[in-house]
Structure formats: structure tokens, C-alpha cells
């Protein structure tokens, strides 16, 4: 396995994705007394090129580690960040890679990764139930954490009208926010 530097990885993404590559950022931080540096790469891509970007990550590292998908409600859109780590198992060698995708609220769909990373199932199920993002092609469509009697169409992490605001219990003597 060839080890690329963060700059080379970003160039690689640019070549592979072309116009679908939107932005990138390298975050560096020195730690403790010896001032060793650890690095995080942030890659921002268009949704159409999402699977292509993941395929490229799989080329950089066989079996990349997908820690979690984080999702934020940005008003008109939902932003997903796939937190990958690559080049693990080497002292000071690991790189964190955050793959960012933006989905418009009227079309919340993202392809599944379970065919290449089977372990992505839990986090995809969670994103689906908590944020209302449809994961296309997910092998297990059930909810993960929410109970069966939780109302359909309410998503706990949303800040818009589909959020859980109506479900909140208002304590006596308090006003509803």
C-alpha cells in the first residue's frame, strides 16, 4: 500500500472527481511536549460524486474505517459528514478524513455504503431515522434506536417543522419555547 501525503490525497480527489470536487481543508494540530502533529483532511464533494469519492478512499486504504456519519440540519439542506480514518495501524501514521456531502431538503437521498463497508449499517439506519435522510439500497430498513411507536415523519435531529418540538413535555409553570 502506497502512503500518500494529505496534499497528494487532495490532488487525487481533484483528479478523480473533476467538477464534482467542491472544497478541501487540511487541519493540523501539534500536541503535548514533543509537538507531534496529527492531521485531519476535510473533503467537500457533490452528491453525484459521493460513491466515486468513497471508491477512491477504498483505493487509498483497503477496508477504510468509517467511524460515524454525523448530520447537521442547515435550514435549507442537510449536511452529512462521513468520518473515515485511513492508514491505521502505524505509529503517528493515521489520517482522519471527513467526507462532506450536502443534500437539499426536497431531495434527501444518499446511496448506501453497506455493499463495500458492511459495518456502515448501524450508522446509516440511525441517520435515516434521526435525520429523515433516505439511504437508497440499505439492506435493513428498520429503525435502530427509536421505538416502534415513535410517530412517522418526526425526526429528532431536525430543527424545522419535522423536529420533535411538539413532543416535548412542558413542565408546569414553564412556557413552551
Amino acid at each position, binding site marked *: 500500500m502506497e502512503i500518500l501525503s494529505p496534499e497528494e490525497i487532495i490532488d487525487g480527489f481533484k483528479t478523480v472527481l473533476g467538477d464534482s470536487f467542491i472544497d478541501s481543508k487540511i487541519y493540523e494540530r501539534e*500536541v503535548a*511536549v514533543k509537538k507531534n502533529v496529527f492531521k485531519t483532511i476535510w473533503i467537500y464533494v457533490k452528491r453525484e460524486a459521493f460513491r466515486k469519492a468513497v471508491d477512491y478512499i477504498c483505493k487509498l486504504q483497503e477496508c477504510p*474505517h468509517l467511524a460515524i456519519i454525523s448530520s447537521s440540519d442547515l435550514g435549507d439542506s442537510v449536511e452529512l459528514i462521513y*468520518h473515515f480514518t485511513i492508514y*491505521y495501524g502505524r*505509529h503517528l501514521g493515521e489520517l*482522519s478524513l*471527513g467526507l462532506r456531502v450536502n443534500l437539499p431538503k426536497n431531495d434527501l437521498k444518499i446511496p448506501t455504503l453497506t455493499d463495500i463497508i458492511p*459495518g456502515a449499517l448501524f450508522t446509516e439506519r440511525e441517520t435515516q431515522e434521526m435525520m429523515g435522510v433516505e439511504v437508497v439500497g440499505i439492506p435493513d430498513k428498520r429503525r435502530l434506536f427509536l421505538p416502534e411507536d415513535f410517530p412517522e415523519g418526526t425526526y429528532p435531529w431536525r430543527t424545522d417543522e419535522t423536529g420533535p418540538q411538539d413532543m416535548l413535555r412542558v413542565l408546569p409553570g414553564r412556557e413552551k419555547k
Partner: protein
Amino acid sequence: MTTEEVKTTYTIPVGPIHPALKEPIRLDLSVDGEEIVDVDITVGQVHRGIEWLGMNRNNPIQSIYLAERVCGICAVSHPFAFVQAVEHAVGITPTEHAEYIRVIIAEMERIHSHLLWAGVAAHEIGFDTVFYLAWRVREEIMDLMEYVTGNRNTKAMFQIGGVRRDITEDQFPRIRKALDYYKSIFNQLKTVFLDDRTIRMRTKNVGILKAEDALKLLTVGPTARASGVAKDIRQDQPYAAYADLDIKAITPDIVTGTVVGDVYDRIIVRLLEVKQSIEIIERCLDKMPPGAILTEPKIAKLLNTLTKAEGEGVGRHEAPRGEVIHYVRLESGRETLSTWKIRAPTYVNLMCVSTILKGGQIADVPIAFASIDPCMSCTNRAAIVDQKTNKKSILSGKELHELSVEKTRKLKG
């Protein structure tokens, strides 16, 4: 008696409340005779919406203490990852002195957590003498944590920019005394856990997880390392004082020469990590640079900075059970976090449970499931449904535990 053989698959729901599970979770085991053919997992029974509280109710400083309550056993791991995430988002650098204190506390946590697990694992196979031994030995580290932090658990040591309590040089002799105690009994513990005939019989070649499965299912922590995946954030992407210490991930081949990926290998990894933690604490005590414990001691001022800040950060920590990762996003002018995502190690480790249990026996479920050290709690019942006759019988947690104890007795002869 009929000669006609009818093959029936039974489904045994274990949990949500069960002795082998330290936290509510439900396993639906499909069994063919004694052999497990399939496993389905249902989680969410204790989902408390902690992330939601951090995004809607608490300010980031209050959320440190909320993060501490994500888990009762890893009460250091979550605040550690969380404060790092906020520091990365805002651009605060903790003091060097505090970086060392953080590591000392985190390693104490690992010793106590692994010993706790060792006791639970021994109990699962019905070897209660070892269970009592492990938990008695664990008391020393609990006392030490109380001495250093003021509390046995839920220590509230972490703060954005450093720690809340100092470890001073006059405390070093007491810490070294506890470490020396563990060093003096380590060989005894090793003999008990690795050479005992009963433990070997019940754990060797049970609950095997191969390296390629561990990688595909994103397994982390000692469970992954026992399968030969040398992954450890303290080694791969060291943070805090770990960056100064050149830590090496522990895999079972150090002791046995080969990697099998069974329960026995998981015992080896955890046991050696206790020793590694002792060494890390000692080196931290030797090297600890002097200085302040906080970059910004005035909380109101810190809170002001956090409210104005804009950015995002990821904090990772190698908890006793594996990688903990927190993602936070801060918006300027907003008192709460705008996004907070927590990933605990058991979240991903649960996915390998199916692989671990498949092909095994019902009596091996408690030890095989406990071997991933799921972050979970206690006793109730399991119901057995005979799909063919639709007859339902309840197998109490006690009975399932007795099945496991019975197997140990049979093996011993």
C-alpha cells in the same frame, strides 16, 4: 417414537434485560438444537437523547458533565473525546501539564475497566472465585482514583482547555504504591487467567472473529486487536500526552505467537493492556511537565469565547472498549452546540456479535457476548419460542447462567 426427523429452528430472544448483558439490549437467537444459526440485534432501550440535550438545552461546558454520564464505566472516555472536539473547533490548546493528567486519569480508567471486565467474564463461565479475586484487586485502583480525583467514578476531571484538579508531586508516592501493588500481583493474575484449565477450556476457540471480518464490520478496541488488527488511536493518531510516549498496539501473538481471534485472545489483550497502562502512568509521572492545569480558569470568560466561536471539530479517544469519537459544530451566537454526534465503541462492536455467536452454542452466549465487553447492565429473563408448536417457555436469566455454569462443570468432568 417416530423415525421421521423434523428440523426446527427456535428463536430465543435474550434480553432486553439479562445477566449476560450489562445494558439493555435484545438478541434474537435463531437456534438449531444447541447451535446458533442467526442473530438479530435490537438496541435503543436506553436511548436518552443526550445529543439532543447538548444541541438544545445545555451549553458546551454543561455538556462535558452530560458526556460523562453517557456511560457509567467509561466516565472518562466521553468527556475526554468531547473536550478535544470542542478544543479543535474553537482552537484552544490545553496546557502540557493538563495533557499528562488527562492521560493518567484515562489509563487509571482502563485498568479499572479491564479488571471489572475480567471479573464479569469469570462470572459468566461460573468461575466465581476468579470473579471475587478480580474485583477485590480492582478496589485498589478505585481507591487510587478516589484519592486523585475525589470520586471513585464520575470524576468530573475534564474541562475545555485542561483539567479541573491538579495531580501534585506529593501525591506521586501514593500513586506509585498502587502501581507497585499491581506490578507485584500481575504474574499471579496472568497465571489465573491464562493458564487455568477451566478458563482455557471455556474460552479457547469460542467466539472467533477473523481479522477480515473485524475490518469489514469496523470493529474497534481490544476486540479488534485480539483478532490481529493492530489498531489503537494512542498509537495511530496519538493525542494528549500519548503523542510523547510511543505506544504500541497490543495483539495476542505477543504471548501465544499466533492470532486466533477467540475469547481467550481477548483476555490476553485486556490483561496485557493493564500492564501497559501501569507503564504509561509511570512514564507520565516521570515526564510530567510543570505548569497550570487550565488555559482559561475563568469559566464565564471561557463560555463567552465558546458562544462567539464558529467551527467544527472531531475528538477521538481510545477508551477501554475502543475508539470513542465526538463530532461537534459551533455556531457563532448560539449558546448550545449546533451539532453533536457521539459514537461509542459498542455501537460498532455490536455488529460483530452476530459473527461471534454464529455456529456457537447457547451455553457459550454469555461469555462470547461478554467478551466484546459490551457497555451494558443486569438480570432478567429470556423467552424460548418453539416456532413449530408455538409453545412459549420462559428461560430466566438465572437458568441461562446455570446452563453456562453446567457446561463448565461438564468440561471439568
